[in-house]
């Protein structure tokens, strides 16, 4: 009885060892296949229990998988793709973040896909939604459900894009007109020009103008003063960075 238990434990241990090799991608040659097969032979010769025989067959299958992995491992080693894991690990550990990112960028060709809804698609969805028969909901929440007019208004928000573009043009012209002799405009004074209630809106629109490349934000590292440098047309960027602007009770804290 004890020998059956021991054999069972031994087989389970061998199965687990083979499984670990397959899962972790460790060197499959670290397993001594010959020794395992010898063990299996001795177990199967002594076994009279069905459970042991089943486990023995399972172990043999796992060993076959390890041999298949050994074949693949050898093939990979022989191919030109082989690079020593230790070398790669050392390179990763010694490189800086930007170099690593650059390495990925040079080998990365992202998938191009469209995940955004178009105005036409929303209109189509709205038409479908409005064509659905109304269900007889008699709960107090019924009155809160938006009417057709509300939905139409929501759809019209897309046309605000043109209004925003007009605002951006206006603000850009204002920025160009306010330039000093160095071609710069004080950031804080510019966004708070129309009072506290308009500061956030102007800062938001200014961010768009900067993102578009029609202006540049320059921060003096010594004085901390932030200025805007507007351009007549889109300028080529040398490098890209983001900046956080904090507004506290109408005051700009850059």
């Amino acid at each position, binding site marked *: 009885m004890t020998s059956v238990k021991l054999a069972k434990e031994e087989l389970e241990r061998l199965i687990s060892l083979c499984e670990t090799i397959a899962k972790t991608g460790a060197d499959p040659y670290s397993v001594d296949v010959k020794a395992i097969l010898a063990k299996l032979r001795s177990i199967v010769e002594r076994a009279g229990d069905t459970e042991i025989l089943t486990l023995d067959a399972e172990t043999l299958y796992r060993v076959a998988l390890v041999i298949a992995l050994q074949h693949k491992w050898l093939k*990979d080693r022989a191919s030109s793709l082989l690079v020593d894991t230790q070398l790669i690990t050392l390179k*990763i550990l010694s490189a800086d973040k930007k170099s690593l990112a650059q*390495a*990925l960028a040079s*080998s990365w060709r992202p*998938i191009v896909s469209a995940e955004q809804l178009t105005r036409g698609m929303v209109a189509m969805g709205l038409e479908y939604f409005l064509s659905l028969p109304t269900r007889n909901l008699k709960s107090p929440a019924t009155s809160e459900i938006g009417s057709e007019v509300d939905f139409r208004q929501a759809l019209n928000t897309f046309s605000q894009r043109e209004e925003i573009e007009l605002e951006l043009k206006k603000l850009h012209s204002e920025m160009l007109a306010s330039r000093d002799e160095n071609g710069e405009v004080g950031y804080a004074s510019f966004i708070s020009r129309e009072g506290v209630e308009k500061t956030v809106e102007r800062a938001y629109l200014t961010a768009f103008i900067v993102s578009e490349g029609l202006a540049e934000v320059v921060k003096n590292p010594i004085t901390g003063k932030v200025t805007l440098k507007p351009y007549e047309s889109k300028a080529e960027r040398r490098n890209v960075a983001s900046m956080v602007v904090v507004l506290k009770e109408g005051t700009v804290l850059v």
Partner: protein
Amino acid sequence: MSEPTPEQSAARKKLSTAMAMLLFTSHRLPGVRGYELRRRLGKNYLKVIESLNHRLEPLGLCVKILFETPGDRQPGEEDYDRARYFITLTDPLSLSDIVAAGWRIDDLAVLSAALALLYSRGGKAPRQELLEMLESKLPKWRVEAALERFSRRGYLVDAGDGVLSVGWRAVAEVDQKELIKAVANLSSVADGRQEQTT
């Protein structure tokens, strides 16, 4: 200009249908399966894809086919039907373009290191080992958050058994050979400093 023949109109319609199918994310994942293309474009869908590829080439785009079971043998009709088709860029973007598109350098470094290590290990490695290596460069919370995000996006696969493997998206987007070559050619930070002082 003469009126297009019905055949030309039909071919143009098929091209635009193929383009729309490849670009729009109809399910959770981008791209489309071969059998879906066959259903919409007919049995000669591979010719339509080839023609679309020629038209996309001058725009810096190409159609990429990702087979379910990559192997050395020549893919058969069934393999093409089960494969996933995407549109990808032909040439890599510059690092500043990627950053401008909203990616963080830290996240890119995590993905680069993770993929390089996984490729050098034949496609999988223990998660803990990868975490320990990356923690020497970045805070643990940032590494864990990045790995989680990349698993969700399909760049990595975390089966939950403590082992990370290369995901479908990395296979589709990242050139394994080029990445390994670029990482192997990286000069260390210390080397860089030494070069600057000499």
